[in-house]
């Protein structure tokens, strides 16, 4: 009898992927005021993965808990997560202290999640492999380290077998890599895992009735000490035009001129 899964899906509210990001006036961070935000696309994959696991029924899923740490508007992404299928959610409110300051660093997030896992008795954590604003790709790995659990990152396929073990096919630079480890564990999602479902309007309306708890960092006893300081943020230099060459010889000559070969 496989152990029922108690899944934790942490999600992050980031600037929408279609919006063109701009650097703020002070050149310390990306402008977020008034810009459209939505759920991190990799986190949509994690929610979808959790919901698909529940639909497959083997192993049975007891509970899918969504969690987000951030300013008050994070409730929007949590409601979307619940509309997609999460059962309940926790919002760890971090007041918007200003641009760039409000965000936790990956280590802080990992410590918070480790405490939540212990408190809520979770045995599987599914995260997005990275968030599209800082592209750190660290939280899942740090969390597994803090918990002492097995981890499978950049998952493109997840399979359970009867012995409480999970086989994960991972996307790596050279191709794919399959790992197998016993639960409890941490999995981070990559693009090929699934196609997230739309949060339909009836589900969004039902999600309003699902439980959303508000907590603060001190409730979990986590210190949010920042260890990194952003010195400056700049836009990339404008793209210089290319040049056209007539044939392969011309290209070789040009490359020699530029000192590339």
């Amino acid at each position: 009898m496989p152990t029922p899964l108690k899944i934790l899906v942490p999600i992050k509210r980031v600037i929408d992927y279609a919006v063109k990001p701009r650097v703020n006036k002070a050149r310390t961070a990306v402008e977020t005021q008034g810009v459209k935000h939505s759920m991190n696309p990799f986190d949509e994959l994690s929610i979808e993965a959790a919901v698909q696991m529940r639909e497959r029924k083997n192993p049975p899923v007891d509970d899918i808990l969504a969690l987000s740490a951030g300013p008050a508007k994070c409730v929007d992404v949590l409601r979307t997560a619940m509309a997609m299928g999460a059962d309940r959610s926790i919002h760890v409110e971090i007041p918007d202290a200003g641009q760039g300051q409000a965000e936790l660093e990956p280590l802080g997030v990992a410590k918070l999640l480790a405490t939540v896992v212990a408190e809520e008795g979770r045995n599987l954590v599914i995260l997005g492999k990275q968030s599209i604003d800082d592209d750190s790709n660290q939280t899942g790995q740090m969390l597994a380290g803090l918990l002492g659990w097995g981890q499978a990152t950049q998952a493109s396929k997840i399979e359970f077998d009867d012995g409480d073990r999970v086989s994960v096919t991972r996307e790596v630079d050279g191709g794919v890599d399959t790992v197998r480890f016993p639960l409890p564990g941490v999995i981070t999602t990559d693009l090929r895992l699934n196609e997230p479902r739309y949060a339909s309007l009836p589900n969004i309306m039902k999600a309003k009735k699902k439980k959303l708890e508000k907590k603060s960092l001190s409730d979990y006893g986590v210190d949010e000490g920042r260890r990194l300081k952003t010195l400056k943020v700049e836009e990339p230099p404008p793209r210089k035009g290319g040049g056209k060459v007539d044939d392969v010889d011309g290209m070789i000559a040009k490359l020699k001129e530029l000192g590339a070969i």
Partner: protein
Amino acid sequence: MASKAPISFLNRTGLIKSNEYLLPTAWRPYSHFPPTRRRRLLQQSRHKCLSIGRRTFSTTPWRGLADIDDSFDPRQQDRESDEVDVCIVGGGPAGLSAAIRLKQIANEAGNEDFRVLLLEKAGELGAHIVSGNVIEPSAVNELLPDWNNPDNPSRFENVTAATHDKMRFLTKNSSIPIPAPPQMNNKGNYIISLNQFCKWLGERAEEVGVEVYPGFAASEVLYDSTDGSVKGVATNDLGISRSGKPKASFERGMEFNARVTLFAEGCHGSLTKQVIKKFDLRRDSQPQTYGLGLKEVWEVKPEKFKPGEIVHTMGYPLPSSTYGGGWLYHFGDNLVSLGLVVGLDYPNPWLSPYGEFQKMKHHPIYKSVIEGGKCISYGARALNEGGFQSIPKCAFPGGALIGDTAGFLNVPKIKGTHTAMRSGMLAAEATYSALTANPDSGTVFLFEYEDALRSSSIWSELKQVRNMRPSFHSRLGLYGGIMYSGLEAYLFRGKTPWTLKHKEPGDHAATKLASQCPKIDYPKPDGQISFDILTSVSRTGTNHEEDQPVHLQVQDWDKHKDDQWPKYQGIENRFCPAGVYEYVEDGAKQFGVKFQINAQNCIHCKTCDIKAPAQDINWQTPQGGEGPKYFMT
């Protein structure tokens, strides 16, 4: 519904001509039979054809020629439905004002359970809103009296008080000051970003208990089967592929039944178009005429920034046969809103409003301000110019039109926000009293709304300026219009016994043939002041799911091209401010070009639906949550 017809599949069978499924219901075979029986009858006739050996293109076994919509797939499922008291389509200033006013009245009367539901196709409120905008605070002062009160912690903060106005007539290199008509005096008004204002209104709406659902597009009007009145709307199905088949992520839309449905879709709304046609709401009014407004927001150097300054220009770059004008407003923190409105009754198919806008920015009066600055946003939207003569009947059985979708913009003032909000508030009051007067279910007709409109400031305001815009239709073009409007502004003030007319049947018919008009060559963008169209489109943040039916519905792309290309030489490519329509070189096709619709670039401006000379482009809403994500517009 024709919009979801799997046209390619039907064509493949060879049995049905490409047009047949887009004909009105009455002309379809067996239309008087109920759908299930119709399907079986068509199946039988199809089987008969098979048995006599008629050839088809498809070798797969016949699956049943079902209704237009689908074969036996999930789209046949019933939709989930919900009952609300009032359903509002569109989360712009009119829709939000109506919603807030309704809940204010209901809460005051102790009726906390009064359900007001607002659907908005943008992913968040304000994302599809683009407007100048200098707002006359008369309406919002009534709706939310402490909207600007410094003691109110949730006041709207991003206002810049208007300081002074300038009007200029531009020639290629100079600008001549001209007197501004008294209506255009902006003392007491504020320069804002309407996009931000709508976000703020949305928060106020949620506070009073309105159910706001951004990210869901109402795509279908629901009619009562007994008396044909409007009984609500339905959102569109999500997860349909480009060919019309449902994908794995398919989600059925949802129905909302409401005793009163208010349409607040903004200028030339897609559902409004259907409702106007069905109830013949334009029977006593002139057709609506439109303009296309293109806007950019720039961050300028501090030394060029003059907070509160409002500049309006006419003349260059538009030819005298084309109505339009530019604006430049200084607001916020070193920000400048600038843009150009082009009347869509322009006759020359070689004219490109986008090209004219980029040309205009090089004029010294604009260039001197934006030089060295950075363009942070771009947007475009059609706006109403018909004014008083074009106001349709606004109430119909089961609902009403509010805001720009009816058309209350005051053209000489270039303001429509206050009238839109006021119309929403009036409709809300009429709705609430109509619903409480007839508590049992019966069709509601908002007589009170029509009466209230006529006795409100909207009516008197629009009546006063009704002759100014049509005066530009004469052969004297721009100059005649300016002279007459000057007379109207200073002397007549609308008290003349005559009312000038717009040109029937509408803007699309004003287009002359390409062969009759001089070709216009637009200078290449320099990348500093002017930009190419795709760079501008990237600043709108627009995106659509690629694998969905093309929401700009043209029956037959090849036929459209064969018909329109020789006459207008690709006018769609020029009037679209987002580069959606293209005539790509293709030696294999007739005329050497192929018509292509890049629906992903669409910024929902509705110009194509208005200006297409043959009126054969039907704008339907794509999946909810898509489209532009405007910033500070």
